[in-house]
Structures are given as C-alpha cells and as structure tokens.
C-alpha cells in the first residue's frame, strides 16, 4: 500500500468514497463491506475483490476521518444470515468524494487525492 501524504487520502480510500457516492446516487444511502467490494470490482473492471484486511482497514480509517459513519443493521432485517455493518457517507465524505470525482473528470476513476482535514496517518 502506498504511503500517505499528511492530510490526504490513499487511492483505495478515494475509490471507496467514489463507490459509496455511486451507491448513494442509485438511491441507497447505506452499504456493507462485501457490497462495496463488488461495486469497486465492477467500477474498476478488476477480476478480483479487494482483500478483507485491506478493505476493512480502509473503511475504519475513513470512519476515523469522519468521512463515513457505520452502524449494525437491524436484527429484523437479517433473515438467518450474519448481520452486516452498514456504512454511510457523511456530508463531508460526500463532499470529498465529489471533489475527487470532479478532479478526475467525467467517466474517469478518481485520480487526484483530495486533501482532508485530519492530520497525518
């Protein structure tokens, strides 16, 4: 994984925010880990899903930065499967994702790494 410049996001984190923004645009505010990995695979055209450790570590960092929030899904919705942790973009997260998307240009993956408020990693 590339080293983080102080106050900026890593490419994977920008990719996650972009996928979260796409999910939000499709009318679904909340997303879960595997669903996100799937969306990212489709968007990047990759054959493989992001590694478990890589994905969940990045999600927890984005939560620490205040760009995502998370909660456990209601037990009523579970229907015999393990309950999922649901993530949502915060207002700041959506703003950062839009900045990154605008910087990359239409139809492009977010390229530039936006600056964020938190300090160095």
């Amino acid at each position, binding site marked *: 994984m590339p080293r983080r410049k102080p106050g900026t996001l890593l490419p994977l984190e920008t990719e996650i925010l972009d996928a979260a923004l796409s999910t939000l645009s499709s009318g679904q505010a909340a997303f879960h*880990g595997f669903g996100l990995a799937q969306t990212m695979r489709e968007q990047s055209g990759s054959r493989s899903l992001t590694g478990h*450790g890589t994905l969940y570590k990045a999600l927890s960092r984005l939560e620490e930065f205040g760009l995502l929030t998370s909660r456990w899904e209601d037990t009523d919705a579970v229907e015999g*499967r393990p309950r999922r942790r649901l993530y949502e973009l915060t207002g700041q997260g959506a703003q950062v994702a839009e900045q990154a998307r605008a910087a990359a240009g239409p139809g492009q993956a977010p390229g530039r790494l936006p600056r964020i408020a938190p300090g160095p990693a």
Partner: protein
Amino acid sequence: MTPERVAGLVARWVRLYTRGLPAAIAQRRIDEIDADLYDHVAHERAHGTSDWRIAAGIGSRMLRGLAADASWRGRQAKAATDHPLPPEKAMRNHKTAYRSGVGVAIATALFLLWLMGAVGVIGVEGDRADLMYFGVLAVGVVGAVIARFRPSGMARALLATASAQALVAVIALIAGKHQAPNASVAEIVGLNGIFVALFVGSAWLFRRAARRQPPANAGPRA
C-alpha cells in the same frame, strides 16, 4: 476445498489476529468478516460460480489482506496499550502469544501431514513430490531446536519454514506438476499459499511473545 472450509479458515485467522484486543473492537471485526464471507459465498453461488473458484477467491482475499490485517492489529493494540502493562499482565500476554504460536505451528504441520497422506498436495495422490514437505517440516523442527524454543528464535524458525514451503511450490511449478490431471497453477499456489500464511501467522505470534516478554527481574507485585 469447499468455500465453507476456506471461509472457516479465514474466520479462524480473524479470531487469531484480534486476540487480546479490546472485546468490542475484536468482536466488530469478527462479525464484519463473518458477514462478508457469508455474502461472498451466497453471491457467487447465486451467480453459478464453481465451488473451487469461490474458495480460491476467498483464500486470495485473505492472503492479499494479511499485511493490512497485521498493520490494523498493530494500530489497535498500540491504541489499547498506550500505557505499559503491569508485569503480571505482560507475563500472561507473553504466555498466551507463545502458546498460540505453538498451537498454530503444530496444527499447520498436522494439517500438512494429513493433506499429504489423504489426498496429496502436489499432483495426483501418492506423487513423490509431496515428500519435499518433510523437508519443510524438518526446517521447522531443526530451527526450533537451534532456537532452543525461545520466542524470537521460534519466529525466525517459522519464517524459514514458510520460506521452505514457498520454495516447494516454486520447485513443483518448475517441474511442471501443475500439468498433472486435476492440478493447476492456482491449486499449487493457493494450497501452498495457505500454509505459508499459517506459518507466517505462527511466526508473528512468536514475535509478539518475544516483544511482550517481561523483563527478567519483573516478578509478581507484593
């Protein structure tokens, strides 16, 4: 290997690297990965993916995330133990990590022996290439004896064992064992990769035990 078996292996790995962390943090990671594994298998099955491909996909996700797992664990552990532990707790953690390292190493060795005897790891069942794995186990045993079972030496011995395991996979591929019936490059790399990851996991536990070893003069408090 079925997807459920590989998912079980991932679940055990998660439980291993979250051991000793604050319960809420550990449980959240365990539950989250359990849900991910369930969703992964269900999604791929619904799309008609073969069991072998699902299992390989899950195993590959685990292996590609190992470094991030270790780094995440390090950060969480550091945050949880900003203050030095009292000697009694340090001693307890040291023993737990050492015992876990021994447990993982022995379980991995037994699993390897069972796989060699039951179905064969390389090529078809009974392939003499499997005998190379006795060399892998010998590296571990000799390394442990040379290290006199001290945690830092055990960590190096297990890393050497993992390297030997990887070397066997390379030799098998160079020898063209992936061309045998029912064998493939993915199978040789995947199976050996799992053992490499387990031996590295054991080495990491021994390293943790070495780091948490309390000073020699740290006895129980009066």
